[in-house]
């Protein structure tokens, strides 16, 4: 009998808990709440999903912002850019995130107009495992493409030797490593190779997953790093932030101006400054002009609807974005992301002021 009463009370508890959850869910997911909201400060929960690449920065921003604005709780799931675009298009999240701009097809499928908001800048570093090199390896852009095409197969190929006078390069086979999982990193890397090599454009093309003519695939930045570290004579590509944190050797790449550039935060910001941002605020900045520009750089974006619709969440989201492109940018460098250059921030400001909730400006409160 005792046991039975225990069961009954447990069941009651469960029912109560379920009811409680239900109430909470109703409170937070209120769509387009009426203007007659209670005056007490209410908690606002924003959810976003998308790119994995900026996740460390975003999660830092979101926790910082929560300390500044305790009523705003932002939750971000790093499920990948493709998933981010799908979820914002289905309106299951308040904002999406993507490393590469939406395609024309994806824009067309979205239920309403979406804006790209550049948040920060990243880059792809080319890393290698070669013994006996005293100075960093230097590689010209077309040479990198030919290595990944399988046309240059030995480390002592004269096109590599030419740029690395004095380095002891042996007649070893080049082992190529690529990302096997679909990733913004691969998208940016191939975007660059397509620009510098017509043959790469014909044979391979640009995308988050491509059919590599040569090499071994490794999963994630950590997988590529693992393979490169443990296998002599390899070359691979990883996110700059990852390469910097793990102190990997990085290739100095020849940029459009003919300079060999080390991937640094300053060189990435210089690449962004070298490309005029169009009205969509989405642009490829690989192979950018500018003496100090690192050639495999890219923006990463948040995706928000032009009409944010929700009376409470809309302004909160717009204010968070405003904070992120101003105060938030100061936190970039510590995590190896490059801050947006001032002209880009000015353009983003103008775009944020255009965001609407219904027919009112979302940023009216600022």
């Amino acid at each position, binding site marked *: 009998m005792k046991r039975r009463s225990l069961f009954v009370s447990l069941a009651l508890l469960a029912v109560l808990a379920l009811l409680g959850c239900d109430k909470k869910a109703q409170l937070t997911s209120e769509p387009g709440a009426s203007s007659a909201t209670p005056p007490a400060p209410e908690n606002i929960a924003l959810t976003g999903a998308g790119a994995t690449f900026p996740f460390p920065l975003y999660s830092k921003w979101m926790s910082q912002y929560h300390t500044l604005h305790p009523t705003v709780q932002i939750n971000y799931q790093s*499920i*990948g*850019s*493709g*998933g981010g*675009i799908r979820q914002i298009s289905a309106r299951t999240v308040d904002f999406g995130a993507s490393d590469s701009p939406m*395609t024309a*097809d*994806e824009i067309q499928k979205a239920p309403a107009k979406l804006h790209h908001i550049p948040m920060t800048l990243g880059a792809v570093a080319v890393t290698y495992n070669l013994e006996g090199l005293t100075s960093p390896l230097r590689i010209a852009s077309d040479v990198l493409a030919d290595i990944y095409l399988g046309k240059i197969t030995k480390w002592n190929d004269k096109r590599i030797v030419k740029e690395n006078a004095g380095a002891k390069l042996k007649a070893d*086979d080049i*082992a190529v490593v690529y990302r*096997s*999982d*679909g*990733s*913004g990193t691969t998208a940016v890397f191939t975007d660059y190779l397509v620009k510098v090599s017509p043959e790469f454009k014909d044979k*391979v*093309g*640009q*995308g*988050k*997953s*491509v*059919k*590599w003519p040569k*090499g*071994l*695939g*490794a*999963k994630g930045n950590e*997988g590529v790093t*693992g*393979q490169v570290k*443990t*296998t002599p004579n390899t070359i691979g590509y990883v996110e700059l932030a990852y390469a910097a944190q793990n102190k990997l050797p990085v290739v100095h790449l020849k940029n459009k101006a003919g300079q060999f550039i080390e991937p640094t935060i300053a060189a990435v910001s210089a690449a962004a400054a070298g490309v005029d941002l169009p009205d969509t605020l989405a642009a490829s900045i690989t192979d950018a002009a500018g003496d100090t520009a690192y050639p495999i750089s890219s923006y990463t974006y948040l995706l928000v609807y032009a009409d944010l619709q929700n009376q409470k969440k809309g302004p909160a989201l717009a204010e968070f974005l405003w904070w992120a492109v101003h105060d938030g940018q100061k936190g970039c460098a510590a995590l190896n992301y490059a801050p947006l250059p001032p002209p880009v921030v000015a353009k983003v400001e103008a775009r944020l002021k255009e965001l609407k909730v219904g027919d009112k400006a979302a940023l009216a409160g600022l």
Partner: protein
Amino acid sequence: MDTPQSRLGPLHRSRRHRGDALFKGLTAAFAVLIVVILADMALEMARTSRASLAHFGWRFIRSTNWDPVREQFGALPFIYGTVVSSLLALILAVPISMGASIWLSELAPVWLKTPAGFLIELLAAVPSVVYGLWGIFVLCPFLRNVVEPLLGKTLGSLPLFQGPHQGFGMLAGGIILAIMITPTITSVSREVMKAVPNVLREGSFALGATRSEVVRMAVLPYARSGLVGAVILGLGRALGETMAITMVIGNRSEISASLFSPSYTMASVIANEFTEATGDLYLAALAEIGLLLFVVTVALNIVARLLVWRVARPT
């Protein structure tokens, strides 16, 4: 007359019946639930993959070309990779597991049985990403520097052991799977053999059988169907394994006779490409691979069951 039932009285009896009915219904519902979930998953995958089924038809499983940029999708290399890596894993793992479980249940000193069994069960609980990392940093370099050159030198005339020594590839994938399924097969087999009634062993010993004869003639035949189950459990884990194998197999959609060459499995390509797959045809193609994995798993299970039954049939 004085049976316990008759003393309980009508009230208790009806309550017990109700309880029984409830219990029966509940367990049946759970069993049905599993089948429903499985069917729903298969249906959902078939629905999602419709675009790819219509567009490629049979070409999907004949073609070896997987090119997301040009939206050309052929799954043959993935099917090949999954089947071969799992079979390789079984070939390596089954003899080891059987030997280990015989030792654990029949031959090991009593004070060792429990700790050794506990350790093996612990191995079965290691997350696959840990195996994968160990594969990258320990197994693959070891294969590249020691095992592959040795195999190449001694058995290099076979097409199985030709080509450059890269460490990452089919061999590494098969070995990592074998290591992962060995604890599963061993621990289930040990339980099965422990359940063999002692009278069988005692009877055999009484007839003058040696220890190995007891195992061969009394224990193994009695435990046969349970052992088949253990092997199939291992096979299931090998077929569905994603993380560890994708970290060591090289992830190239190619078919090569050599075990040194990189390969790719169905589970790996789904895990690798699904999150970033855009485009309906691309998603449909990945869903169709999921569907194929279903089909291959069922087919291989049937084949394995038939094969093991035939091999293990008492003569």
